[in-house]
């Protein structure tokens, strides 16, 4: 998978991860993939809902040592 941009949102609390994700997705083109790293425990629900609302595809997500990673394909 080719990653167009990586966003480090680790350590940030609500609402910052989603605000920064929104900004970051504005920087890439349609069809490109944004990788997001976050530690906020609500991040999975938040990013899943946000991607769905915007029509973006949450391709994959993972959790390791309290760090959540998401790969979002821009609509």
């Amino acid at each position: 998978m080719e990653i167009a941009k990586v966003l480090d949102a680790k350590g940030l609390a609500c609402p910052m991860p989603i605000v920064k994700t929104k900004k970051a997705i504005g920087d890439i083109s349609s069809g490109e993939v944004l990788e997001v790293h976050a530690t906020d425990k609500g991040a999975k629900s938040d990013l899943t809902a946000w991607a769905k609302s915007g029509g973006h595809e949450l391709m994959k997500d993972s959790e390791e040592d309290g760090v959540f990673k998401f790969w979002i394909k821009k609509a």
Partner: protein
Amino acid sequence: MTEKKKTTIVLFSGDYDKAMAAYIIANGATAYDHEVTIFHTFWGLNALRKDALVSVKKGFMEKMFGKMMPRGADKMELSKMNYLGMGPKLIKNVMKKHNAMPLPQLVEMAQEQDVKLIACTMTMDLLGLQKEELLNGIDYAGVAAYIGDAEEGNINLFI
């Protein structure tokens, strides 16, 4: 292009925690590409006050109100566990530890993201607040402007 969705919030409360909730929702809604309006009325107006003392001509009652109310978002009290000002100090420390954004920065971020901040002019008169005492770049309006936004609102909240 479909028309943008709208979120509107009436911020009536002058409590730090409640205002924080309002501003977190507002900033979150901008991430959803919503047009967001926060209509500040009564004690909620204090979230828009500049923290610096602005000298304006006022009558006795207005001066008293101005002194008794918090000057700006940072000086607002908690709705619970305020403990004469100890509560806000404690919670701001905890917030720092958890990297949560303090209210003044949430307000600033909302402005950067073009959240429409409205001050209710009727309650400004009641509380003796003048434009010079409030943040720059905000709008002034009454109930009709709020309804105009809210009737098209997908999310409308009163806090």
